[in-house]
């Protein structure tokens, strides 16, 4: 192993320990790691923005002689310049235009995508015959349809959760809790794998305790 490779492993190991030391309490070692991380990663993203967005998505597009829709990136460029007017007090209000543009576009786009992929698709997936298959299947089908129904009742805002309606909302929150508990339990394994990966690096690549 060359010097630089060993250096890299040691550096990575020290940084790993620095982050883990936060579990005990905040300390100078962690603060240093945090400072390095913030600086390096902000720099990384600055570079990403520069080469990937400004250079590739803007400069290369508008300077491409064969490009057919050159005006598209220019609109973004103008909106971006307007964003910078914030730096000047007098015309700072112009920076709200790109903001208004972004918020309007996000609202419009997301509204449709969510409505289709979350609402329409899920509703059509729920429309199934329930009395099909074995006794167990029927119970399960009833439970899925009923559970979805009660879950929606829980989200009702304009009706007080009282009486039968309240009962359904109650069942709804139980279904949600069951969902949350199950997802939590199922995810534990993948979270542990991440730590295993790090320990594997510390014990294996660094300390060479395991193969």
């Amino acid at each position, binding site marked *: 192993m060359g010097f630089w490779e060993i250096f890299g492993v040691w550096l990575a190991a020290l940084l790993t320990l620095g982050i883990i030391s936060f579990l005990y309490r905040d300390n100078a070692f962690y603060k240093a790691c945090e*400072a390095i*991380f913030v600086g390096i990663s902000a*720099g990384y993203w600055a570079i990403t923005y520069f080469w990937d967005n400004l250079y590739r998505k803007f400069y290369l597009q508008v300077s491409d002689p064969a490009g057919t829709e050159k005006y598209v990136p220019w609109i973004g460029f103008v909106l971006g310049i307007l964003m910078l007017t914030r730096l000047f007090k007098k015309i700072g209000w112009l920076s709200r235009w790109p903001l208004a543009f972004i918020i309007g576009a996000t609202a419009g786009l997301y509204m449709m995508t969510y409505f289709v992929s979350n609402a329409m698709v899920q*509703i059509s997936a729920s429309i199934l015959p329930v009395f099909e298959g074995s006794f167990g299947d029927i119970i399960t089908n009833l439970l899925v349809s009923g559970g979805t129904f009660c879950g*929606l009742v829980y989200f009702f805002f304009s009706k007080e959760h009282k009486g039968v309606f309240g009962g359904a909302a109650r069942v709804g929150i139980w279904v*949600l809790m069951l969902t949350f*508990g199950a997802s939590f339990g199922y995810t534990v394994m993948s979270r*542990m794998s991440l*730590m295993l990966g790090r320990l594997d690096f510390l014990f294996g690549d660094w300390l060479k305790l395991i193969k």
Partner: protein
Amino acid sequence: MKRRIPLLITFVVGSVLILSVFFPPAESWGEDFSIFFDIIAVFAFFLGGGNLVRIHGKKLFTRKSDWGFSVVTLAGFFVMLLAGLFKVGNPAGMAGDVTAAGSFFQMLYEWIFNPLGASMYALLAFYVASASYRAFRAKNVDATILLVAAFIILLGRTPLGMYATAWIPDSFSILQIPNLAIWIMTSPNMAGQRAIMIGIALGVVSMSLRLILGVERTYLGVDSE
């Protein structure tokens, strides 16, 4: 006036993009927006990155407590910036990809950025443990259901779950922990997810309309400058 134009922009852009779904020639406008957005984000970064430099620079010059760490942050930021802008040590020079193997930028990424990110992510394992200790308590019916569901799934992911209920006859095999865990994941879990997703969709519709119609406008700031 300074406020009415932005409201108008939001209204026009929002409604046009909603309707664009129904008109094939306008279908690609959503993609165009993401290009605009990416370019706007670059300019916004001048403000954000500038803010980062200003805050840490101020700490450094006023010798506030922990100013040393601000030096580290600034150093990291500028080293990364220079390494990436001038593609230092890139085997293919300025023509190469910025993340090319062997470049200084990529080395910093592998030695520093990556282990730090992975370690931060790995902390989750510890927090999962402390959260389970503290949060899964049978305080009321809701919490008990949360607890029981999590416990069954966890049990199903260890050999213990298998041993604990192996005695249950096959005709009631659904009650064996591993089967029960599978059933929970596919049935009640799906019902809950569906209700949440449909609810989210309607919440987004309602909020989007509030924004587009200008009913919700706090984000637009003030007129009096």
